């Protein structure tokens, strides 16, 4: 893994490289995309927590695996201990967006490793572009997203991921409040660099840091992640947001969501995402995974042109579970 050097670069130079060296039809690698040493079928992945492969298999059957929409699969956030998640209500429909207060329900590290990792290890998908388009399948790397409230917790999670060959990369969710300061770890560049460095030392697998957009200086946080040894950064996570109970005569209104506040996603924040992705891509040399309100190829292309190497689809998966496949195919047809 390349150590961070803090150097800046021209926009777009950190993009994943389309594999153009293979001779047409020569080998199945043609048309694939390289990202942190991983070979991907295309540039479109999922945002953490926006697609549950295990649940979706029961709903859609074999078609899900046959037409798997993502070039890499990012798990929902895994924590050391099981979490039930926040009390309902967990959703609020906003103007062209969704506020969620899900609370990271998950079965905990041990059950994830025992039950889910084997089920997620053998995903493959079609290459949509190049001479091998539609004829060859490429492995879908499993990216495990983990969250801990301290560097020690994160180290334990990353150690467990490092042990498993089925896991290709680790994404750190650093949108967790620091118990001492109450600030999100990811919003404090000093603390962020510390936790990234602590986990970086534990694994040779690609380490992605999912940046929080709820920070005063997101590019500074990106530089801190890079300085700590991150191989890539991903953004944006949801923006902190809130909704109130409907007005009722004589009643004091309170937060609608069971968690109080929640995170806004969807088209409502697309332009915010574009600005943050562009600013971060100008600030770091490691590749950037861009996301935020992507519904179609034009939106994905905006993020790529702003410097993103890969694009993640999040809330749009909820509206159309095959959205990412459609976007990947359209992107490939435009040569991206």
């Amino acid at each position, binding site marked *: 893994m390349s150590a961070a050097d803090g150097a800046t670069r021209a926009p777009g130079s950190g993009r994943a490289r389309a594999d153009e060296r293979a001779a047409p039809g020569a080998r199945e690698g043609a048309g694939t995309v390289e990202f942190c040493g991983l070979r991907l079928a295309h540039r479109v992945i999922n945002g953490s*927590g*926006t*697609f*549950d492969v295990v*649940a*979706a298999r*029961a*709903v*859609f*059957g074999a*078609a*899900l695996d046959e*037409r798997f929409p993502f070039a890499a699969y990012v798990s929902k956030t895994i924590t050391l201990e099981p979490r*039930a*998640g926040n*009390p*309902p*209500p*967990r*959703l*609020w*429909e*906003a*103007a*062209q*967006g*969704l506020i*969620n207060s*899900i609370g990271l*329900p998950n079965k905990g590290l041990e059950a994830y490793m025992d039950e889910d990792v084997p089920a997620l290890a053998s995903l493959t998908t079609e290459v949509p572009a190049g001479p091998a388009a539609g004829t060859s399948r490429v492995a879908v790397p499993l990216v495990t997203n983990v969250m801990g409230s301290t560097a020690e917790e994160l180290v334990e999670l990353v150690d467990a991921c490092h042990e498993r060959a089925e896991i290709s990369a680790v994404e750190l969710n650093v949108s967790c409040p620091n118990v001492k300061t109450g600030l999100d770890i990811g919003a404090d560049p000093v603390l962020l660099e510390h936790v990234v460095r602590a986990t970086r030392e534990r694994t040779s697998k690609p380490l992605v840091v999912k940046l929080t957009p709820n920070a005063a200086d997101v590019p500074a946080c990106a530089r801190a992640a890079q300085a700590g040894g991150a191989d890539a950064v991903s953004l944006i996570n949801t923006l902190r947001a809130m909704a109130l*109970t*409907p007005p009722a005569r004589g009643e004091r209104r309170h937060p*609608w969501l069971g968690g109080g506040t929640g995170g806004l996603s*969807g*088209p*409502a924040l697309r332009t915010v995402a574009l600005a943050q992705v562009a600013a971060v891509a100008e600030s770091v040399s490691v590749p950037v995974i861009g996301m935020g309100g992507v519904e179609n190829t034009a939106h994905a292309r905006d993020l790529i042109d702003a410097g993103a190497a890969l694009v993640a689809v999040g*809330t749009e*998966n*909820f*509206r*159309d*579970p*095959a959205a990412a*496949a459609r976007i990947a195919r359209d992107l490939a047809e435009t040569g991206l």
Partner: protein
Amino acid sequence: MSGFARATAPFARRLLRVTGVDPLGAYELLRAADPHGPEPSPGQFLMLATAERWGGGVDGRPYLPRAFSIARRRAGESHFLLEDVGPGTHRLAELRAGDALWALGPLGRGFSAPAAGKRAILIGGGAGIAPLAILQDTLGREATVLVGFRDAAHARGAELLRGARVATDDGAIGHRGPCTDLLAAELGRDPDAVVYACGPPAMLEAVRAMCASLSVDAQLALETGMACGFGACFGCAVPRLDGGYLRACVDGPVIDAAALERVPEAVGAHP
């Protein structure tokens, strides 16, 4: 109880063609041609959104698709019962024959068939009567049907079912009071029946409590807001009796009443 066959959903949303939107009292019966859609099992649902002008309305809504029980399947058409109560249902109610409709599904776990020899009692409140119609079609034998509505205009919805006994809050049609009054009388006569219920949370909770106290099997089709319908968002959480949460979309929407501590208040994304 054995399950009806659970349909596997095609892995992408598909465009349906609206064949009609027929007023039914306070409701609309939306009909759409879905010739290639799998046959749903009773209690399954689709996520629906209009192909045009879904979004951009008042307050920038609707944005997410809306979950609708399949009320009936007939000659390649799927029927849905809707009431114009919010931006999503308002837009859907504007549809006219020929318009395009996005659909994903059939989704969720539907009702289980009653054990041999058990009488089925179907009880529904308001727009929650919808999945009872396809259930009545599928059971293929006489089931007792009890339905409750606010007033006479809403009680027109009872026409969706055959031989339904009606209760209204204002007494305009049928029994004056909640439809659970009718259920109490039925269970008094036949405590060996199995109950199938769908309706607003307060009604479902009354059914749950009554069936629990009488040790009667009950299957509740929950109405909750959901963002995706296929287990991705974890937004439709329903507290379980043994702790933690169910996902109404993939663990339900039909839940064995014995699995719930109580039926939660509406937890929709769309108040």
